[in-house]
C-alpha cells in the first residue's frame, strides 16, 4: 500500500471581486493530479510559486476539501476519514505564523501534545528530545513573540513530530531560513526518512529536491509535468545544450522571437544586477549561436557560453515548456 495516493485530485478557488458589480472568478489551482508516495520514501513536490503545492498539501492534511478526485493517507480517505488521517500525519507548514505568540515554545508544544493525545509520560520524554532535534533547547521557556523566523520554523517542525506520525508533510520548510539553518534542516529531514518515516516535501528549490528526495514530481500551473528520480529527470535533457546569453535590456518580443526560433526548446530569463541571463535550451548541434544572436538584433549582448545541462535546466524546461 502506498503511504500517500492522489487520484485525479483537483481544487479550484472562487474569488469574488468588485463592489457594486460582483464578479466571481474561478482559479484552477490544482488541475487533476495523480501521484503516489511509497512507505518510507522521501518524495518531493517541486514547482515554482503558485504552482499548486500548498493547495495539494492542504488537501492531504484535510484542511481543504478537494473539488474532485480523491486522496488517501495510509489507506484513509482525506474527506471521509479525516480524523484517522489527522492522527497519522504530521504537518509542518512554511512561514512564521502559527503558534500562540504570548506563550512559550514549551507551552505551545505541551498544548499540541494534548490535542494529539500524547500521554503525559511520553510528553516528558519526547518534548525535550524534539527541542534538541530542532535546536531550541534552552530557549523553550521564552515567549514565541521573541523568536526569530528560523526559530519559529523549527518550532513548527517539533510540533509536527509530537505524535510521532508515520507520515510527515512539510510545505516549503526551509523558506526564510538562513543558509546554515536550511542545511541543518535538510539534514534533519534526511534523518527522519532514514528512521523510516514517509516524508512528502514541497519546495521551489531544485537543488533542495535533488539533495534530499528519492523521487520528485514537478508541478507547474496545477499539473504534474514529470515524475521520477532526480537522475531520471536529468536524463530528459541529457541530449541538449544550454546556451547562456548575457543581454542588456532585451525586449519581450525579442525573447519571444528567440523562443520561436527553429530548434530552440526553451528560453528562461534570469534577471541579474545589470543584465539578463537568457538560458536557451536546444538539442545538441541543432542551432548555431550565430543564428540565435540574429534574433536578438539590436540588443546589446555580453558574454555567450554553451554548456552541458544540469538538473536545474531539466526543471526549468519542464516548468516552462508545459
Amino acid at each position, binding site marked *: 500500500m502506498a503511504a500517500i495516493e492522489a487520484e485525479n485530485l483537483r481544487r479550484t478557488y472562487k474569488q469574488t471581486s468588485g463592489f457594486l458589480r460582483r464578479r466571481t472568478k474561478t482559479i484552477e489551482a490544482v488541475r487533476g493530479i495523480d501521484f503516489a508516495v511509497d512507505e518510507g520514501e522521501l518524495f518531493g513536490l517541486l514547482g515554482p510559486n503558485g504552482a499548486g503545492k500548498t493547495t495539494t498539501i492542504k488537501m492531504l492534511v484535510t484542511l481543504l476539501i478537494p473539488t474532485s478526485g480523491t486522496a488517501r493517507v495510509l489507506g484513509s480517505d482525506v474527506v471521509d476519514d479525516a480524523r484517522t488521517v*489527522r492522527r497519522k500525519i504530521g*504537518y509542518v507548514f512554511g*512561514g512564521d505564523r502559527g503558534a*500562540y505568540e504570548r506563550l512559550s515554545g514549551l507551552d505551545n508544544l*505541551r*498544548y499540541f501534545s494534548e*490535542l494529539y493525545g500524547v500521554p503525559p509520560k511520553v510528553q516528558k520524554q519526547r518534548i525535550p528530545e524534539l527541542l534538541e532535534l530542532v535546536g531550541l533547547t534552552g530557549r523553550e521557556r521564552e515567549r514565541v513573540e521573541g523568536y526569530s523566523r528560523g526559530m519559529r520554523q523549527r518550532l513548527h517542525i517539533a510540533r509536527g513530530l509530537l505524535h510521532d506520525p508515520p507520515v510527515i508533510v512539510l510545505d516549503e520548510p526551509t523558506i526564510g531560513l538562513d543558509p546554515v539553518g536550511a542545511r541543518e534542516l535538510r539534514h534533519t529531514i534526511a534523518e527522519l526518512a532514514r528512521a523510516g518515516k514517509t516524508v512528502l516535501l514541497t519546495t521551489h528549490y531544485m537543488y533542495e529536491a535533488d539533495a534530499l528526495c528519492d523521487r520528485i514530481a514537478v508541478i507547474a500551473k496545477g499539473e504534474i509535468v514529470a515524475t521520477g528520480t532526480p537522475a531520471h529527470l536529468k536524463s530528459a535533457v541529457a541530449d541538449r545544450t544550454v546556451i547562456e546569453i548575457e543581454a542588456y535590456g532585451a525586449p519581450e518580443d525579442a525573447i519571444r522571437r528567440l523562443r520561436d526560433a527553429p530548434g530552440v526548446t526553451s528560453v528562461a530569463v534570469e534577471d541579474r544586477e545589470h543584465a539578463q541571463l537568457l538560458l536557451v535550451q536546444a538539442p545538441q548541434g541543432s542551432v548555431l549561436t550565430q543564428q540565435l544572436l540574429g534574433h536578438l538584433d539590436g540588443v546589446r549582448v555580453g558574454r555567450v557560453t554553451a554548456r552541458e545541462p544540469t538538473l536545474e535546466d531539466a526543471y526549468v524546461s519542464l516548468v516552462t515548456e508545459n
Partner: protein
Amino acid sequence: MRIARLLAVCWWFQLKQMTKAGLFVFTSIIEPLIFATLAYYLFKAGHRPGTLLYAALSAGLMGIWTSTLFGSGGAINFQRWQGVLEPLVASPPPYALILFPQTLAAASIGLYSLASTLVWGRVIFGIPLHFVHPVAFAISIVVTIVSLGVLGLVMGASFILYREANALSNMLEFPIWIVTGVIVPLSLLPGWIHPLSWILAPTWGYRAIHNAALGGNPWPGIGIALGLAAVYFVIGQAVVVAFERRARERATLSLV
C-alpha cells in the same frame, strides 16, 4: 476520561494565554469596578441597604458576560490571526472540543471581575460579604460560568458562519445584561421579554447566584442552567461542524 483531560488542560492553557493580553486587565478588572461604583451610588440613592450586595454581584456578573461575549465572539478570528486555526483544525479532536475550552476560559476570566467587584465593594463601601448558602453560591458560580462558556461556543461559531450575526456581536453586551436580569430583576421587565430570558441559561445561573447569596432556593436555577447548557452544547457542536465543513470548502481557515 481522555476528553475530560483534554478539556481541562486546554482550558488552563487558554486561560494562561488570555491573561497575558494587556487589554484583559482593563476589560475584566477595571471596567467592572466602574460599574460597581456606579451601581453602588444608584442603589444607595434608593435607600435600600439590603441590596448593596445585589449591586456588587450584578456588576461582577455584567463583567462575566462582557468577557464571555468578546472572548468567544472573536475566538475563531483570533486563532485565524495567530495562524493557529489551521493546525488546530488539522489536529485529531473534533474542533468543538478545541473551541469550547477557549470560550469557557473567556467566561472564566470573568471570575476576576466578580472577585474584584466583591472585594472593591467590601473594601471601599464596606458591603458585608455574607452569603446565605456559601456552598450553593460557589456551585452556582461554576454552573453559570459553564453555561456562559457553552453559550460562547454557539456564538463563536455562529458569528463566523453567519456574517449578519457578527454584526450583532458588538451590540449584544447591553441587551443581554437586561434580558438575563443582572441590572434589574426580571419581574420588572415587560412580559414579552420573559420567554427570551427563560431560554438563556445565564438567566438561571444568575438567579441561582442571587438566591444563594441573598436567600432563596438556588437549586432549581442550577438545574435549569445545566439542562440548558447541555442543549446549547449540542447546538454549538452542530454549528461548529457546519463552520468547519464550510471553511474547508471555501478555503477560509487561513488569512492568505
